[in-house]
């Protein structure tokens, strides 16, 4: 291997790693706040990437049906509760969040699709279509199980992954899509040939992480989420409702998923079922980082990107096997360092 190739592999690995890092952060956030192992995070990515690809080719993306349908379902759940509890005052908010916003986003996408808008406008539309899906999913699938054990929530996550991946097949079809690059510019830096695309991905990821950090450090909602992550019961006692923090963390996760999807769309061909693999790599990254610290999770995710890039050079066919086998020594190391827990799961 020459230095040129090594540098190129590093660039490739860091670019993918930056996307995995965003994912790892979202997974960690959702897990800390809601105890959900959010496997379907990968589906946000495929949905966003495929939606961008379809918008670019001038078609109305199937995402509009998923969003409006999901919104109606969530609204039905909430309206049923409001009727049972005789609280008609909640109706306007329910209709606004779960019906008006999705319908408005769908209308915008419908209007914009044939017009071949600027790429940045399309990106905003994609994020507007995918991000509201987070709270909808939380409402429909997870909120009824807010007190279930981590393992039950994990099984539900697999079920949600199944449903979303199947819906992806229904609404996006089985064809893979790769969207146009944001820029074809390249900078030569010594031997290193840096593409503007890589620079964009890495800086968008870093910007996303800084924005998240500011959100957690500086805003009331961010602090509420941190409080819930540290102590759910305590947070509830001081007035942070479990539903609010759940909704908020899923909204952030969906937003991050949409952003990652937009970033990865020009790099890889995305199929309706690609999400699971990408999401799992985010998990491997988060576990490498100990599933507790955000910077370590991001570093773990970049390590996954680098490993993937180098193993695709040495043993292209077995690249996935190598990445996923990596988790075993990490788990071994963790099992040797972690003490046997004295406190057990409570019976439900």
């Amino acid at each position, binding site marked *: 291997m020459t230095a040129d190739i090594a540098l190129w592999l590093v660039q490739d690995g860091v670019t993918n790693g930056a996307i995995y890092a965003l994912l790892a952060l979202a997974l960690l956030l959702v897990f800390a706040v809601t105890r959900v192992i959010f496997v379907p995070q990968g589906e946000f990515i495929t949905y966003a990437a495929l939606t961008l690809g379809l918008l670019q080719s001038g078609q109305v993306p199937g995402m509009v049906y998923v969003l409006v349908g999901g919104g109606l379902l969530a609204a039905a759940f909430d309206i049923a509760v409001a009727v049972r509890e005789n609280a008609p005052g909640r109706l306007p908010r329910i209709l606004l969040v779960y019906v008006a916003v999705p319908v408005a986003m769908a209308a915008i996408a419908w209007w914009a699709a044939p017009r071949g808008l600027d790429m940045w406008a399309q990106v905003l539309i994609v994020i507007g279509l995918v991000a509201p899906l987070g709270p909808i999913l939380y409402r429909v699938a997870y909120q009824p199980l807010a007190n279930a054990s981590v393992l*039950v929530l994990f099984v539900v996550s*697999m079920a949600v992954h*199944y449903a979303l991946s199947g819906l992806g097949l229904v609404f996006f079809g089985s064809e893979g899509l790769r969207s146009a690059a944001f820029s074809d510019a390249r900078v030569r830096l010594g031997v290193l040939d840096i593409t503007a695309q890589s620079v964009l991905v890495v800086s968008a990821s870093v910007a996303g992480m800084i924005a998240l950090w500011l959100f957690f450090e500086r805003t009331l909602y961010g602090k509420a989420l941190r409080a819930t992550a540290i102590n759910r019961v305590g947070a509830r006692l001081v007035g942070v409702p479990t539903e609010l923090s759940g909704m908020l963390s899923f909204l952030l996760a969906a937003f991050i998923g949409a952003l990652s999807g937009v970033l990865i769309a020009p790099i890889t061909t995305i199929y309706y079922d690609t999400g699971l693999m990408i999401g799992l790599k985010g998990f491997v990254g988060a*576990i490498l980082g100990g599933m507790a610290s955000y910077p370590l999770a991001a570093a773990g995710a970049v390590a996954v990107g680098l490993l993937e890039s180098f193993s695709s050079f040495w043993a292209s*066919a077995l690249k996935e096997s190598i990445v*996923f086998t990596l988790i075993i020594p990490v788990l071994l190391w963790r099992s040797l360092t972690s003490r046997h827990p004295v406190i057990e799961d409570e019976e439900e």
Partner: protein
Amino acid sequence: MMRRHGALALFLVFVAAAPLLLPAFYVTLFNYIGLAALVALGLVLLTGVAGIVSFGQQAFVGLSAYTTAALAVHAGASPWVGLVAALALTAAAALALGSITLRLSGHYLAIGTIAWSVALYYVFGHLEVLGQYNGLDNVPAVSLAGWKLDTGSESYYLIWLVAVAALLAARNLLDSRVGRAIRALRFRSVMAESFGVDTAALKLLVFLYAGLLAGLSGWLYAHYLRFVSPHAFGVNAGIDYLFMAVIGGASQVWGAVIGASILTVLREWLKDLLPAVFQKSGNYEIVVFGVLMTLLLHRTRDGLVPAFARLLPAGAPRARPPEAPALPRRAQPARGTPLLELRGVHKRFGGLIAVNDMSLAMRSGEILGLIGPNGAGKSTVFNLVTGVLRTDAGEIRFLDERIERSTQRDIARRGVARTFQHVNLVSNMPVIDNVAIGTHLRGGKGSVAAMLRTDRDEERRLLAEAARQLERVGLGEHLHEPAGSLPLGQQRIVEIARALCADPVLLLVDEPAAGLRYGEKQALAALLRKLRDEGMSILLVEHDMEFVMGLVDRLVVMDFGQKLAEGLPAEIQADPVVLEAYLGGIE
């Protein structure tokens, strides 16, 4: 009981007659159900009973199927050689992965199972010797003494013979000494350890058993389909298996058959229906599976077994286990022998000093009361003596041997048994089975004996002992009720019966009288006195002063982790320091 046997017989007759009555299409469907039920059965034990979630069972199915197929195709080996090799490799993989990951908390393990199964999937798909994504074909059928099982119904009998045998073996296993310990793994492993169960080894055993069942399914699959390719062992297969176990009802062996049947039939039906609806081919059925699974979990965690069980007529009430020869008892040390001694024991949790330079000495044949205000460190002392917690400094001696570094199991073996302040029963298990966990160290039959039912003599003696102890504490009427259905006060008494089943030298009881009525308290005091008169020593934590003062020989008073006073009940009652600690001093 008889009617349940009737239901089982009906099931067996149906399984035996099905290929004679049904068209070939259904025989094929039943073959797939049988193959899936084997894997799901492993998950019922692993996930439903022991609480270990695995999405990676298809990796074991695939490992075994590829092993036997590759040996047959490349080396012309007999399927029977393939069976031995496949199961050996599966067992080795399960032991290796299990010993790495089983100590981790549940969700890490579950993610780990996905990761290794993905890794193995790509290995299957890329190795040339395994035919890459095309797989291996021309795998031979199984021959039995010259008879080649190469039709659907011949394979049917092989598959269902194995499946029924595995179901019966699993049912037998759960209904045994080892099975009771397995049922305690999920929420009660500290309790199980305190009665001598090696929970880590037991988890590995269950994981191995689930892996072997998946391996058996893989071997049958390869020689029934005569073809293996990686697609059958992808992530989705693992999700399907887990869904089967959850849908059926993850805590009962029959749930595996019910779940495998529902999912397999539903998939066949949807595979025809949905592509017609959408005018395109594709695995649309996963949407339906995902939605159904979510809805099911919103409603219940018990799956559909309870719904099916309601269809069966209720069995006759279970009888008391028959009398059996008593278990051998251990010799109690002579009255007055130094039994338990704590010297300068310290325990801190972060900044909180829970036990500070605590010393006490106890002789055999006495009832020592340990009292003190809430938070004084009494339960921590219990946890240090029984090995749940480790001391930071100081020594603990039991019968003049140091035990402060010993494991819970080792201390249990020396003859220390306890009850828990927070009731520690397996709430959905009958009272008698809960109590029989106490006899764990007095039996020795393992899992294989349990599956083959060669443990019945010992089992009768263990259950008879459990029944005797329950009758002794006055709960003989409640043997077969789920432990969680008793009032809390009675659950505490169940804990005492369980501890007595261990035939202890030293019995530690933590607040046994809480929640009891006056008459019940008197009966309990009489029982504890009688145990002492028989030579047992008792260390008692209790808040009910009337109960304590009338019962104990001596008292130790703790406050803020330290010993405040020690002496006869009358002396303690008059001690001004104790009064101040309890009632507050006069400012």
